[in-house]
């Protein structure tokens, strides 16, 4: 079971005066620390469900793209995992960001259908008004205490 690669801190990261744009690593950290795969006790990062190389941030254009790989190709929880990722980012990032969450191409049998649902903000908004679904999503988002 591999863990996504982590980058070393650069000197700019250590400098308090340098403005802190949101970058790929920050998104990865937001996601890895706090999302559980509903069917497995380990976090998404430990399962390699979300890999760093699949996070694309453009701080200038205000876009965040995340590709996630479900644990198995016909995983029935793929929509729920994708929704949890989307919700986590919506709650953590400034409102200016456009968030796109997709399944890594070629890793799921219903990826087009799942991607289309995740991209439809009306469907996402209505789903999140369902208190039972919201509760399940919140369960997925309970953070693990992590030591770096």
């Amino acid at each position, binding site marked *: 079971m591999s863990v996504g690669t982590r980058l070393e801190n650069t000197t700019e990261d250590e400098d308090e005066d340098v403005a802190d744009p949101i970058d790929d690593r920050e998104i990865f950290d937001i996601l890895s620390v706090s999302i559980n795969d509903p069917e497995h006790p380990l976090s998404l990062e430990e399962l390699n469900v979300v890999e760093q190389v699949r996070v694309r941030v453009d701080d200038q254009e205000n876009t965040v793209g995340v590709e996630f790989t479900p644990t198995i190709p016909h995983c029935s929880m793929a929509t729920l995992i994708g929704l949890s990722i989307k919700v986590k980012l919506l709650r953590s990032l400034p*409102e*200016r960001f*456009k968030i796109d969450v997709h399944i890594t191409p070629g890793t799921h049998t219903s990826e087009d259908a799942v991607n*289309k649902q995740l*991209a*439809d*903000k*009306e*469907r996402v*908004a*209505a789903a999140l*008004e369902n208190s039972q679904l919201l509760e399940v999503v919140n369960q997925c988002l309970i953070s693990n205490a992590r030591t770096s």
Partner: protein
Amino acid sequence: MKDTLALLQKFNAHPDSRCWYVAWNPKGTLLASCGGDRAIRIWGREGDSWECKTVLQDGHQRAVRKVAWSPCGNYLASASFDATTCIWKKKNDDFECLTVLEGHENEVKCVAWAPSGNLLATCSRDKSVWIWEVDEEDEYECVSVVNSHTQDVKHVVWHPTQELLASCSYDNNVCVYKEEDDDWECRATLEGHTSTVWGLTFDPSGQRLASCSDDRTVKIWKECQPGGGQGTDTAWKCVCTLSGFHGRTVYDIAWCPLTGALATACGDDGVRVFKEDETADPDQPVFSLSAHVPKAHSQDVNCIAWNPKEAGLLVSCSDNGEIAVWNYQSEV
């Protein structure tokens, strides 16, 4: 581009929530807005600013997605994710809930009044379009349920003069309906968009229909006379596609009944107005970008609407809860 789109006012309509839709009353004097906070707000102009006249808070249990004024201006219909459509009657500055239309299995995505004022259409994630008749005693009755779409139906719009209805869907298609023997049927399916179609608008004459989509294009459709003359089905052809203008999903489109200008609301936060080239062949129309405000709002623009009486007056609303009022001026 010598044409301009100037911001007149911007105000927060739905605090801490998204504003899903905004609609002018037929006289063009009031605005109705609705949002994720489950409220409907009525706005009136006081000099240079807009004041909230009424808040309708308890009509729905979930987000209110769209609102629509009746042609006479005395009624307001609201479509909600709680699967109901509420009919409100205006009494001075207040609105009273007259009746609640139930029947859809899940979220109602749109409600629209026919120009006659006797018919209402609703559509839903349950894939159906319902047509309701209203009589002189304000009694509503569902007269048809049509299941022509294979997915979530996003929007319904009536033809400006004929009893003809159009709908668009998550299934990427547009359907056109007519009444036949007291039953409403789908007469044409317009295929061409490659993703969800979010909005529809007829041109002032009703001869053309414009659609906007998640595929980031706008398509113009025209009804063409069937050659063989068989049956009563009509054919609509896509006569123009506007691509390369929108950076993300186009959520709404509105054709100005007074000037013929076409406005769009986009997920890239921008508002755009397109003008038609007067010299082009009517069967091959040409539209060009007349005005564009890239950051009309700080988040997605969900709705765009032309004032029915004042040429160039335009309103938009956004995920950030704001409503913006614009003045569009075109150098002819």
